[in-house]
């Protein structure tokens, strides 16, 4: 029978966690540290604003680029947070989460065969989005010893005549790594010299600990060469609302909007109303959640190190990425055995790229008692397997 799906799909490997998803789904009493979203509900003032908008009949499409009021609030937010000035009419686009923003960005800038440099390990959608846009992902290994930061030298070495862009995502999923401004400047230097665009996924930008949020577009000369992707899912606990944004120079936003208008039309209206409320009065609640993540982060990092799973200090997002090499298992074996023996779900590091092997991702967006119980179970597990 003639194959009915495009060959492009074959380039994208199947999701590494699908098998685990099925295993976990049938189990009772599992503590999951395998999620990628906050455990908090959306702050009530945000939800309530959306409910009110539904009662008032805001159930229609919005303009393709997003509600003008939201784009204005967003421009004001980027100005007060980073000092960046974006024209809300031409340089901002509201997307269905950063996921759509990423897809639009690569489709808007890549010609077939164009290469995109990205960190390995990295968020699973990065290589997939590039492949689906007929581009070529070029994964540059990052290492625990360097805090999983992408080095300017490594990026420089990966540049070819086909390189179109560098895709970075810091604070990072799965490692929790951050890039300080001086480290980002190394990437900017390569981008400037080789005339490359930078797609900067900053969905976790507010979730940083003991440091200020860093925005790539703030670097001198970088605003015009950066596609800044952000959203509301993580800091405002709004994953299900599907609202993100892209900020870039006019021609890029115009290109992305062209795709968005034919493929998504507009982002969810009630989500956009909720996002306006988040920007106007959600920061205190966001900070309360960030403070709680910070406390959990310290507990889990100390706990993992204490039980012999060495873990570098993640300064952002809500993930710890400990090394499991001391157990002698691969990351998939570790994740599967831990799930079956102790009912703790973590995600094996190689799901995020070959350099994630030897690590697992533990999400600490779960309650403190859950974290403590998970650590107790993991300690038992490590003890048992180390003595074998």
């Amino acid at each position, binding site marked *: 029978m003639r194959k009915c799906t495009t060959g492009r799909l074959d380039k994208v490997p199947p*999701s590494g*966690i699908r098998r*685990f*998803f099925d295993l*976990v*789904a049938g189990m009772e009493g*599992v503590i*999951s540290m*395998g*999620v*990628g*979203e906050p*455990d908090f509900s959306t702050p009530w003032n945000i939800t309530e604003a959306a409910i009110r908008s539904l009662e008032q009949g805001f159930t229609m499409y919005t303009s393709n680029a997003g509600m003008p009021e939201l784009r204005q609030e967003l421009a004001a937010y980027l100005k007060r947070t980073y000092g960046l000035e974006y024209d809300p009419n031409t340089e901002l686009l509201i997307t269905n989460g950063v996921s759509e923003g990423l897809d639009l960005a690569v489709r808007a800038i890549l010609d077939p065969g164009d290469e995109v440099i990205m960190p390995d390990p990295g*968020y*699973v*959608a990065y290589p997939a989005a590039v492949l689906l846009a007929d581009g070529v992902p070029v994964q540059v290994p990052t290492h625990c010893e360097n805090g999983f930061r992408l080095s300017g030298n490594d990026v420089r070495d990966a540049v070819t005549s086909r390189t179109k862009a560098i895709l970075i995502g810091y604070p990072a*999923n799965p490692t929790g790594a951050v890039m300080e401004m001086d480290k980002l400047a190394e990437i900017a230097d390569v981008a400037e010299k080789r005339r490359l665009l930078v797609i900067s996924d900053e969905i976790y930008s507010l979730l940083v600990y*003991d440091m200020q949020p860093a925005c790539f577009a703030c670097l001198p000369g970088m605003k015009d060469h950066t596609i800044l992707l952000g959203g509301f899912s993580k800091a405002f606990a709004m994953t299900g609302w599907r609202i993100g944004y892209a900020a870039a120079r006019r021609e890029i936003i115009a290109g992305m909007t062209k795709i968005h208008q034919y493929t998504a039309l507009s982002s969810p209206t009630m989500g956009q109303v909720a996002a306006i409320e988040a920007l106007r009065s959600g920061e205190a609640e966001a900070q309360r959640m960030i*403070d709680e993540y*910070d*406390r959990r982060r*310290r*507990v889990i990092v*100390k706990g993992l190190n204490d039980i012999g799973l060495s873990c570098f200090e993640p300064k952002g997002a809500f993930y710890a990425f400990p090394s499991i090499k001391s157990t002698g298992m691969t990351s998939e074996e570790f994740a599967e055995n831990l799930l079956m023996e102790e009912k703790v*779900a973590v*995600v094996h590091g190689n*799901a995020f790229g070959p350099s994630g092997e030897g690590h697992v991702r533990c999400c600490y967006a779960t309650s*403190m008692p859950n974290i403590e119980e998970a650590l107790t179970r993991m300690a038992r597990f490590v003890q048992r397997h180390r003595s074998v």
Partner: protein
Amino acid sequence: MMRKVYEILENDARLTPKQVATMAGLPEAKVKKVIAEAEKEKVIVKYKTMINWEKAGDDRVWAMIEVKMQPQKDVGFDSLAQRIYRFPQVRTLYLVSGTYDLSVFVVGKTVQEVGLFVSQKLAPLDGVQGTVTHFLLKRYKEDGEVLSPGGEDKRQPLSI
């Protein structure tokens, strides 16, 4: 720094100084010192547990009583407030702005007992001009905690 320690303990008073130190990212000795000083200065007033008494089957009667008062020369409301809060039946007492002056939370075994306390102890006090008693019917949220939370985690068990 002190605020960090207070906030952690306010949320869970059972935590040891070592646990607080980990959560706050501070040396344990420093946390111990902060706690000792806060206890001495009565910044930390007491360590207690929040009980959902309704769930525990307790049938005591609670009331919130609005008290309107005549302020007294030199001492304002303080002297009268002191006379009121010394009654063991009074569990909470606030001076408030608005149409009345004191908000008094009282507990008793029966509606009659609370009623008698108001009519025989509270209302006759010099300076008390009037009282309005509201019996508590249901507690939804107390001290930031929802007493019957919706519960289960609605997230998918795994996601990237």
